[in-house]
């Protein structure tokens, strides 16, 4: 089975810290995504990438950046964490050659204090 692994299930960080959320997939998928999930808002797209070293802004990129140095790894970076970035973060991947189903990681619940 395809696996998308997010490095941390729970994370607590302080305001102003630089935070790295890591996502690794093992099925050679080209496309990777970072979403943020908040109650009442559903999932909102932060950034996505269709290839190594490629990135595109999603709907809410402010305060975030990403890195994709290798095909299997897509990192989300909070340059200076703020309390309004307390949320659930979900990573997903898919392949253009596939059946357009996404595979999701199990999420990182980030709390910024």
């Amino acid at each position, binding site marked *: 089975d395809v696996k998308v692994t997010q490095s941390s299930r729970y994370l607590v960080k302080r305001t102003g810290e630089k935070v790295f959320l890591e996502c690794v997939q093992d099925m050679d998928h080209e496309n990777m*995504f970072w979403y943020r999930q908040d109650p*009442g808002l*559903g*999932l909102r*797209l932060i950034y*996505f990438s269709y290839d190594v070293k490629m990135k595109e802004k999603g709907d809410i990129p402010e305060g975030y950046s990403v890195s994709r140095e290798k095909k299997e790894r897509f990192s989300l970076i909070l340059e200076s964490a703020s309390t309004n970035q307390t949320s659930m973060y979900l990573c997903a991947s898919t392949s253009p050659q596939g059946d*357009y189903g996404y595979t999701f990681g*199990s999420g990182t619940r980030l709390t910024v204090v």
Partner: protein
Amino acid sequence: AQTVTQSQPEMSVQEAETVTLSCTYDTSESNYYLFWYKQPPSRQMILVIRQEAYKQQNATENRFSVNFQKAAKSFSLKISDSQLGDTAMYFCAFMKQVAQKLVFGQGTRLTINP
């Protein structure tokens, strides 16, 4: 830009009942893809069912079926013979092209009571 709206934040039914979750969307595209995802307490998002807009026949997966009304831009999910394991958040999602970004609705929290 596409938008997806789920107007039922929470629903609750008894085990074995049938429940319908509503979803509407807005798009100017003629062909696209629609999905229902389930997120149980484990947080793992699971694809429940998908529908391609050019297909008129409603998709069905075991106890799960959809009512796809393209003209009305409506995509509801029906769960028959509901089970305790169906308790989860359910998200409706839209995709313009294969393997592109998904646009999600706000979610519906469904509780199945014994």
